[in-house]
């Protein structure tokens, strides 16, 4: 298997899951696997530009995910329905592809493996 989708469904802080998902995506991409990330549900909050988690002693997850395409060749996508339900638009986010649920379904069917966080 060579094509992996990392599905992020949880927000950036409160658990380590987004950071662990990021670490897995980078690690797999470094092994020359074809990796993409889809953000759904509260996972879309990872992409919000205005994050200042300094008091949590953490770095902004949005910054990490915005650099993952150029740094590691990992494409990122946000589900439009999850954005709409949370009052978010593409303008609120770092650079990311916005997809609908049909596209997400095709992506899920197309990859060899899905790792959900």
């Amino acid at each position: 298997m060579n094509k992996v989708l990392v599905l992020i469904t949880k927000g950036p802080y409160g658990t380590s899951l987004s950071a662990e998902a990021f670490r897995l995506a980078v690690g797999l991409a470094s092994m020359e696997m074809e990796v993409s990330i889809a953000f759904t549900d509260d996972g879309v909050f990872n992409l919000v530009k205005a994050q200042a988690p300094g008091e949590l002693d953490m770095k902004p997850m949005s910054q990490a995910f915005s650099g993952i395409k150029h740094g590691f060749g990992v494409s990122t996508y946000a589900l439009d329905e999850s954005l709409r339900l949370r009052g978010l638009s593409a303008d609120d986010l770092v650079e990311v592809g916005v997809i609908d649920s049909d596209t997400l379904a095709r992506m899920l069917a197309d990859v060899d493996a899905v790792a959900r966080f």
Partner: protein
Amino acid sequence: MAKICILVQTGPYTYENLDTALALARSAKGAGVSVALFLYVDGVISVNSKIDSPGERNLSQLLADLIREGVEVSACGACSKFRGITKQLYVDGATMGSIVDMAEMLEDADALVSLGF
């Protein structure tokens, strides 16, 4: 021979994921399917041989049994370090690995079963 890779992200006892992974691994082995298990995030707690569970199933011992039956088990070294689980605490036969090992398990496998939060 067909091969599956199982990814467990949750710790023992709080979640049923490790029980599911153990049962699935045993069934798969019985059906002639090769199994590789990667323990990630809190999943690494299960590899601690000092687990003591009076009156309950001992999940680290069940994990050790599975390794003796030929299942490849690797736990994330960084996740272990963050949780104070040293290699000396690992059950016999479990490897302290990294995302690189996870990638290799995935590359070799025909299917991924991801059990998370």
